[in-house]
């Protein structure tokens, strides 16, 4: 893991930060799409290196945060069933549903297990044919290939006891939803490097053109982010609305073609509800017909679970970059990582958790 150090070099970071200060002549508002980038910005204090006239606002790119409450409640209902082994990435366990979280279900006797890959869940299904094994398939385009692979593998092996609870969302429709909002104040975007590793950046070009915003595909290390900000401010200052790629060591224009093919084979695009934002047309993935036997919502009769968000939580405005976490009256008082009102305070990629954990001079 030696590669990290050169992307955290204080000298290089200092040079780029100085160049940003030299470039900026007007106030700009930049949104980083991805929660991983938000955390890197707070963890490394990158905002402290930028000129005051450059404002970073935090985008909706935290999969845990945008998973709607009713999907969490469905997960809780499934996980509580005796015949079920419920598997998930660790982050989802502490996200509050309307009454409890997965940790609580686990302490009440539910078989809830943390896995690092959906393929681990497939292995659990293989070893436990008398149980139903469910994986909570949340995420953006980044996690979609592995989840598609898990479903395809389960189908190939005839593992009819394996299912996924799907809550997959897509970045470009969310960007369009934000850009067409009358409240939008974002001048340019740092696109999420890992999403583009899978999908490439072709689909961002029509967005840049239509809404006249420059977009820079950006990585996650401090030097990556600073370089992304520099490239974006140069485009903004030049009134240039191109899509550029800062993360060239990983991201190709067309993305990862085998991964895209696998996603298209297993999933189709449909409308999805985003937590705090609402339904966005054609903004998510659902299983295609041949794979529906592995859809947890089809495997279990869940009744009609519909849930509303708690009124105190402003995570919708946070996720749209309209407000910052420390502008919330519940922040750090009613709402903490131990007692989260919304998922943005829970996830390791959530903006509220980033402000709480690394808050320094920003709160």
């Amino acid at each position, binding site marked *: *893991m*030696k590669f*990290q150090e050169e992307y*955290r070099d*204080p000298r290089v*970071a*200092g040079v780029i930060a100085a160049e940003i200060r030299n470039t900026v002549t007007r106030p700009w508002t930049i949104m980083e799409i991805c929660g991983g980038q938000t955390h890197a910005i*707070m*963890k*490394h*204090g*990158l905002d*402290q*290196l930028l000129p005051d006239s450059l404002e970073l606002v935090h985008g909706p790119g935290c999969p845990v945060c945008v998973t709607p409450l009713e999907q969490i409640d469905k997960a809780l209902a499934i996980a509580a069933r005796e015949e079920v082994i419920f598997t998930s990435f660790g982050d989802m*366990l*502490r996200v509050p549903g309307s009454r409890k979280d997965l*940790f*609580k279900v*686990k*302490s*009440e006797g539910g078989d809830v297990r943390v896995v*690092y890959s959906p393929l681990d869940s497939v292995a659990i299904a293989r070893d436990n044919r008398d149980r139903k094994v469910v994986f909570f398939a949340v995420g953006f385009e980044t996690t979609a290939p592995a989840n598609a692979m898990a479903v395809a593998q389960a189908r190939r092996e005839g593992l009819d006891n394996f299912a996924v609870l799907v809550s997959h969302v897509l970045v470009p429709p969310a960007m369009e939803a934000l850009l067409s909002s009358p409240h939008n104040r974002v001048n340019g975007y740092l696109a999420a490097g890992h999403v583009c590793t899978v999908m490439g950046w072709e689909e961002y070009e029509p967005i840049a053109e239509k809404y006249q915003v420059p977009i820079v595909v950006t990585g996650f290390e*401090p030097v990556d982010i600073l370089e992304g900000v520099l490239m974006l401010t140069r485009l903004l200052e030049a009134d240039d609305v191109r899509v550029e790629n800062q993360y060239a060591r990983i991201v190709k224009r067309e993305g990862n073609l085998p991964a895209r093919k696998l996603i298209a084979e297993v999933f189709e695009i449909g409308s999805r509800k985003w937590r705090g934002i609402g339904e966005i047309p054609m903004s998510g993935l659902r299983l295609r017909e041949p794979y529906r036997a592995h859809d947890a919502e089809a495997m279990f009769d869940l009744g009609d679970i519909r849930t509303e968000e708690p009124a105190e939580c402003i995570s919708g405005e946070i996720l749209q970059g309209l407000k910052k976490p*420390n502008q919330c009256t519940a*922040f*750090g*008082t009613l709402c*903490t*990582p*131990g*007692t989260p009102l919304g998922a943005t305070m829970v996830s*390791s990629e959530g903006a509220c958790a980033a402000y*709480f*954990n*690394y*808050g*320094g*001079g*920003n*709160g």
Partner: protein
Amino acid sequence: MDNKEGFGSCPIPIAEHDTVQLGHGSGGCMMNDLIREMFLDRFDNEALSRREDQAVVELGGARIAFSTDSFVVDPLFFPGGDIGDLAVNGTVNDIAMSGARPLFLSAGFIIEEGFHFEDLRRVTSSMVRSAEAAGVKIVTGDTKVVNRGQADKLFINTAGVGLMERPYLLGADRIRTGDRILINGTVADHGVAILSRREGLVFETTVESDSAPLNGLIETILDVAGDQVHALRDPTRGGVASALNEFAETAGVGIRLDETRIPIAGPVRGACELLGLDPLHVANEGKLLAVVAADAAEAVLQAMRSHPYGGAAAMIGDVVADDPGRVTLRTQLGTWRMVDMLVGEQLPRIC
């Protein structure tokens, strides 16, 4: 961060839960809350209210340090150690952090039906070795066997006493502005060793637990600097971040760390990046944080480095008057961020 005022004390309302969650054993915020509400307030007495890892009590004219710890680590055997040496070292270290000399331990075993004698022999052999290395005797014990499934293989409790021979008592209440923060080596080794074994993760080199008895190192430090050493703590569950937050809160001071000075082994850093863990939140079992008067800090650092358990010792920060109750870190980029206590569950059954 005015709206976070009071968060040094981490008021996770226990009332939010009606049952115990794994997070209540994590060494972080939730556990502090559980201990305060369920135990401290109810068992309330002078020795307990010091809130250190050991009690110091008067007994027949002698001052005794007294501590207990239970071990439920999974797996029982891991690179660099096993439940047996953890059980001895853990209690030895908790006693020694007060400045006392650990002398006698008890050992209680809760064994699941069907547990292999061969494994039990390995564990007891390693307890014998560790006790010899630490210069303590295991003088009393207890054995319980429970039905299969009613415990997981083997749990061990140890308790121990040590003699306070020095005229001063180390503790967070003695921390002063201007003090330096030292650590005797690399952080996060134990947690990463356990996790990589448990999850079957393989890195370039095997990460070994740092499990070690630290009473010898503490003797060395105190011989050099005496009561210029103000407080010692072993950053086990909850890691360096939780231990330093406790110091900052108890002493009503701010603590500033320098990220570039915190020793961390390459493979451990890589594993933490991969797993999304902050190394400052990950458990150690052979590390101590020493808060030392500025004048004595260099001498203590040199004494640590000359000891077998302190070769990679470093001065990682200092105590300031600003931001009382908070730990802040100067990043390698020269910016600042907060270092908060671990909230909730990170890795259950780490020790």
